[in-house]
């Protein structure tokens, strides 16, 4: 099977390891670019959200590059993302690409489909024991990647040279990529973290603290959000991201898990609304309680759960005094625009902080 999959942050390092070691040929589509986007836009429904369009473009580039199978995650609503795979497949077929689409539905909701799809991933050259071994390494890689990123966000605002910290981090990604067993991954991770900690920082600087919330794909894939975390880090802001792929935060700085987040959301939104909507509410409350200076909500244009969340944000700002900025992203959103809005938001937060200090 010549298989490909969408980019999402750095996760391709773990996913490609998994697929390659199960005996598949991995076709790397180019990382998403302007071209990917315009290709995706051309073949997607006009009001599909941005992630749909970028994935569409990615798939088209992948099949052009020779992929005959694609894997992606599924879901059962009420957010649209769960239907993406199905519709992508139909559009591809309609365009004359007979690709196989392995939609990994949540195992509990569709045990049979899950089993069948995993099985077709495992076969023919691999065995279940090998699958287990490889899967564990891949999982460990994912966790290591998350940990590296967490540290990067902490250090970037303090680093004397922003360029140096970014370079060191990227070198660390390479260590993780090269590691071929659980213990090697752990070693690689320690080495990478150590390298990063060795980068000189300015300890006296207290950065603004901003929490990032929103829909998972636009939060995790830098191409879609104009690398907002780097943008902010370079401006000297500490960003804490609410979502990591392994759902695991280094120091539990934000919360003790999903349950807490839900509980915090309930006074404002006592209902799961799909996607990440209810979480967005809960996380904002938690960031406020933890003394963060502000929250940035990232959402694809027309993303319903985030619209529901957004409409409730002003009330949280009023109750808890935490400014929230919502960025709805679509193909027209330019980097310059994001930067300007970001700067304005930072000014607001700085002013607020100065006022508080004056008191």
């Amino acid at each position, binding site marked *: 099977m010549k298989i490909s999959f969408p980019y999402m942050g750095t996760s391709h390092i773990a996913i490609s390891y998994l697929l390659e070691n199960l005996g598949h040929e991995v076709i790397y589509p180019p990382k998403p670019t302007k071209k990917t986007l315009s290709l995706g836009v051309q073949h997607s429904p006009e009001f599909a959200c941005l992630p749909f369009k970028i994935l569409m473009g990615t798939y088209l580039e992948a099949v052009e590059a020779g992929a005959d199978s694609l894997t992606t995650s599924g879901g059962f609503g009420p957010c649209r993302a769960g239907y993406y795979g199905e519709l992508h497949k139909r559009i591809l077929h309609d365009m004359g690409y007979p690709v196989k689409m392995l939609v990994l539905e949540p195992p509990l909701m569709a045990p049979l489909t899950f089993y069948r799809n995993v099985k077709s991933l495992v076969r023919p050259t691999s065995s279940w024991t090998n699958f287990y071994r490889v899967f564990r390494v891949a999982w460990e890689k994912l966790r290591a990647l998350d940990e590296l990123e967490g540290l990067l966000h902490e250090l970037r605002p303090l680093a004397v040279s922003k360029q140096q910290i970014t370079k060191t981090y990227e070198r660390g990604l390479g260590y993780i990529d090269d590691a071929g067993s659980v213990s090697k991954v752990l070693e690689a991770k320690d080495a990478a973290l150590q390298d990063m900690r060795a980068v000189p920082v300015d300890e006296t600087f207290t950065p603004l603290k901003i929490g990032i919330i929103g829909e998972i794909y636009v939060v995790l894939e830098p191409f879609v959000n104009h690398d907002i975390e780097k943008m902010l880090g370079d401006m000297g802001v500490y960003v804490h991201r609410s979502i990591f792929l392994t759902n695991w935060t280094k120091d539990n700085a934000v919360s003790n898990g999903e349950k807490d987040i839900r509980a915090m959301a309930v006074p404002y939104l006592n209902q799961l609304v799909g996607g990440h909507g209810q979480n967005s509410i809960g996380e904002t409350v938690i960031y406020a309680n933890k003394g963060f200076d502000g929250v940035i909500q990232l959402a694809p244009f027309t993303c*319903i*759960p985030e*619209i529901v969340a957004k409409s409730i944000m002003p009330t949280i700002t009023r109750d808890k005094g935490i400014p929230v900025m919502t960025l709805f992203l679509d193909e027209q959103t330019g980097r310059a625009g994001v930067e300007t809005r970001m700067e304005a938001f930072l000014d607001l937060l700085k002013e607020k902080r100065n006022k508080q200090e004056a008191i």
Partner: protein
Amino acid sequence: MRVGIPMTLSFFTFYPLWKPFFEGLGAEVVVSPISNKALLDEGVKETVNDACVPIKLLHGHVSALKDKVDILFLPRLVSLDGKNTLCPKFLGLPDMVRYSISELPEIIENRLDMKKSRFELYRFMFRVGQRFTDNKLQILRAIWQARYNFSRYRKLLLHGLTPAEAFPLLESGEEPDKAAETGDAIKLAVLGYPYALYDNYVSVGLLKKLKEHGVNVVTPEMVSEKDLKKMSKTLPKNLFWYYSNRVVWAAQHYLRDQTVDGMIHVTAFGCGPDAMTNRLIELEAKENSQIPLMSITIDEHTGEAGVATRVEAFVDLLKRKKGIL
């Protein structure tokens, strides 16, 4: 006690159930005015600008009602068929409204989730009823009456009537005239959410216009539950939203049935689910039939004239194809 019901969203599905129910509880039912520009403008002011047109309109309806009633009926509709949920905006509706519009009266925001059990609808009504009276017998009687009226309503729709045609018959108890379906006229399936199709303002008078052209119109509400359910098995994976699924299934039904000459899909501007729904119908139509399909997207600036021209051209095309013109 005056209960306010906005004339949008689930109104066209459930009004004949809620009205006799609340009246049976001794309340007076107040319905918001028919959608109009002022209502929409008001709603646009109150809602996040990223919301879809129907949600903006709802906010307008609520604003129009809020000073005229003692209590607002805005239940949290989670699932109406025990399987799928409604669009997330329905799920978050009471919260959205509460945080967007100030000085609201009390809200009945009870949750209706038929995933819980088959009788959840009646349990839900019972819970709502208890806010009005302690007399359990009276609540049961109100539910019974409402149920009766509701099942009549559903029959009238299946009979081919639109809600606007059915409502007066429910009041008067009359039977519908046997619709004079002219055999040689063209028949169009008009697909879309009840709150888009049956709201004359939102649909810019589409149904009326088609009827003026002598077109026989059928909608998703005119397909029986049984037929819809059959269609739900034809797709490898169904959508997740109640109203969207019904639109897709109805489309499937009419495509297979081959009794319609064309289909029009009315989609709401800014509607998340519709982006998927529309493409799905398009692909189904392309794969399975020769039936022409036209999509109309409705937003707050849609002009009546623009839609009229497109619809006329489409109808002419179908007539020519059928050799009527």
